[in-house]
């Protein structure tokens, strides 16, 4: 495993994923990735999950199927992805070309006291995604790899999966709105649905 201090900074990683976002739609998972996205700049086209652990990838799938004209990026943490591991099998069957799932893997449950996650000990998320049928996967350990993936989100012909090695730390929380109805309604308005 890569030494913690050599892993990517989560806030910088989120900024890189979103710096040329164009009309990208973003779904973030319960916990730190929601704070990371808010820190990168709140946007009506971000749908932040504050709960429903394990749902991020599937929200992304439903959105990607509905909006085949737009690119959809899900960014979630290793613990959140592990709770919805079955959804990788479900997405592996569908593989909409406009969906990318990125997992910020710090190998810990950061919101609950930094307990080790399964990704720290045994589970290789990229191997799981490949075994579930994802045709293009990324195991990202540096900024160069992250920038390659960030560009690929906008033109890939198949669903992407990326595991991004993130430093286990706890930057100050940046909280986006947490009213679910507001988040839903502003997302639909900003994307021309309502």
């Amino acid at each position, binding site marked *: 495993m890569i030494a913690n201090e050599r892993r990517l900074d989560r806030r910088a990683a989120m900024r890189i994923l979103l710096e040329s976002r164009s009309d990208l739609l973003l*779904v973030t998972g319960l916990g730190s990735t929601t704070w990371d996205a808010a820190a990168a700049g709140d946007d009506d086209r971000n*749908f932040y*999950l*504050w*709960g*429903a*652990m*394990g*749902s*991020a990838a*599937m*929200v*992304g*799938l*439903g*959105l*990607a*199927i*509905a*909006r085949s004209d737009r690119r959809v990026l899900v960014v979630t943490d290793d613990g959140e992805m592990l709770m*919805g591991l*079955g*959804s990788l*099998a*479900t997405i592996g*069957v*569908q593989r909409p070309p406009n969906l990318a799932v990125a997992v910020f893997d710090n190998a810990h449950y950061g919101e609950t006291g930094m307990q080790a996650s399964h990704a720290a000990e045994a589970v290789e998320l990229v191997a799981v995604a490949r075994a579930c049928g994802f045709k293009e996967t990324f195991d990202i350990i540096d900024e160069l790899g992250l920038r390659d993936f960030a560009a690929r989100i906008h033109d890939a012909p198949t669903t992407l999966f990326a595991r991004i090695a993130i430093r286990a730390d706890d930057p100050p929380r940046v909280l986006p709105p947490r009213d*679910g*109805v507001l*988040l*839903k309604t502003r*997302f*639909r308005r900003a*994307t021309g*649905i309502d």
Partner: protein
Amino acid sequence: MQALAAAEIPDWRDEIFAALKAAEIRQVGYVPDAGHARLIELCCDDPEIHAVPLTSEEEGVALAAGAWLGGQRAALLMQSSGVGNCINMLSLTKTCRFPLVMLVAMRGEWAEFNPWQVPMGSKTRAALELCDLLVYRVEQPEEAAETVAAALDIAFNGDLATAVLLSQRLIGSKRWVK
């Protein structure tokens, strides 16, 4: 009035499918169930419907939320035992007031052979109501389509979560010994 021959009586499953089509359902998430077999087949064969097989029912709750964010209507097909798998995920539906329509094939009630189906089957309605879903139940074939249509109406007109329980007596008990 002359009675219709059996072949001319519309099947209630086909009528439910027609109700889904009339409501412009574009995504259907399902965990395979014998009681939903015909409906699943119809959804998979329809070019306007994106049918998504799920590994577990809670995935469908999240799928439906994503569909709605993208401007599409979704419906979920599951067995009563799968309702238990959805409980925490229904917090997403409630907190964000997402519309939701779950069609639930009941097990563990009428003439059930397998007692392992009974704990969840006997608590399906209570569990859904505890999560603030509006719950409708179908006992007779002629009620099926109109009940589903009513659930679709109230769900998508009012951003409300609904479930239609298709009773085991309606579906017919699973045959264990052939």
